[in-house]
């Protein structure tokens, strides 16, 4: 029978998703992914070709690693609906590498009977190096009762839940706003390449939050950006 579902009421900012350690990537998996995705770029499947263009070997397509991190989300958010999922590829994943997928709830909010959690996501290799980072937004039922009501055609349970990142304004100590602060070590690792991220990162996240959460007040969107930026430092 299906696993227990996840409901909004039981989630707290700072909750960690159970880490998902994938089996080591091998060349058979790269072939299978090429076949399944239709992406036959030879740098992922043809060892001789990869070496001829200066690579030590074939390497995993970024989308395969994104698929692994996607598994972390779906395993955790059972019963939820994925609204947004985006990543930045940071480091290549090679045959023999073990990808470990991790995540943490960064925000939660609800309005008009629709409830969302925001998650920070990242993947590391066996050396603990960051290979990918990103985020996701998941829509959830407020509770089992809310789900039962909606599935039987009744109106949803309505609780106004402002973004938690706005509730505790702490400009002096940004880490404190995202509750349990163990966030720091993982985030620090890629601090160096943070700068060239801003240009494409910002318009993108702004555009998507507009699209996926049209009912939110503009204040929530603009205010959450600086908070997220500070948290990375």
């Amino acid at each position, binding site marked *: *029978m*299906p696993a227990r579902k996840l409901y909004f009421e039981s989630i707290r900012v700072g909750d960690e998703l159970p880490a998902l350690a*994938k*089996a080591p990537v091998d060349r058979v*998996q790269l072939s*299978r*992914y090429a*076949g*399944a*995705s*239709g*992406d036959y770029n030879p740098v992922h499947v043809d060892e001789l070709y990869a070496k001829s263009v200066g690579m030590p070997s074939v390497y995993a*397509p*970024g*989308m*395969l690693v*994104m*698929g*692994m991190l*996607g*598994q972390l*989300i*779906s*395993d955790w958010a*059972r*019963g939820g*609906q*994925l*609204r*947004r*999922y*985006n*990543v*930045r*590829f940071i480091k290549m994943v090679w045959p023999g590498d073990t990808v470990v997928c991790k995540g943490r709830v960064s925000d939660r909010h609800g309005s008009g009977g629709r409830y969302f959690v925001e998650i920070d996501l990242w993947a590391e290799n066996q050396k603990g190096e960051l290979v990918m980072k990103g985020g996701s937004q998941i829509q959830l039922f407020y509770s089992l009762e809310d789900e039962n009501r909606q*599935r039987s055609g009744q109106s949803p349970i309505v609780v106004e839940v402002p973004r938690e990142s706005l509730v505790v304004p702490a400009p002096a100590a940004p880490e404190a706003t995202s509750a349990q602060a163990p966030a720091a070590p993982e985030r620090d690792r890629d601090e160096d390449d943070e700068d*060239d991220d801003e*240009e*494409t*990162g910002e318009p*993108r996240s702004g555009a*998507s939050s507009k*699209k*996926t959460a049209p009912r939110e007040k503009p204040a929530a969107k603009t205010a959450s950006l600086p908070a997220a930026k500070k948290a990375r430092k």
Partner: protein
Amino acid sequence: MLDKNAIGRASPPTLNEVEKGAIRRFAEAIGDYNPIYYDEEYARASGYPTIVAPPTFPASFHSAADLRELLGVGIKSLLHAEQGFDYERPIFAGDRIYVSTRVSDVFERPGMSGKMDIAVIEDEGRDEEGNLVFRARRTLVVRAAKENA
């Protein structure tokens, strides 16, 4: 530098039929054995109408887009820098989804070895009634081939 005129160039919608076998093989390749991707009964008991596709499944969709044509340059190499998806709803086995691709932006960004050409490519998937199912956004670092090279 890439041609700014490429912005807005798009490919016509291409039909993608979502097959159960394709979902299974895609999930297997990721090593994700969640039964909602394999077992119809389990998927229904989990509240879905049928077998679901994994979040990155749209990566397997094809469109009529030829990036070389859309960007108007020969391409020496492409580096996939970022990827994002927005979902209106999950994708299910049996869906018939029309995918079109457009160049949503091209610009230069300072990189470690000089300026880099960046192209942002957007895919859009719609069902047969024209309802949006997903949007996908790829950010690519493009190295154009030199003329006659």
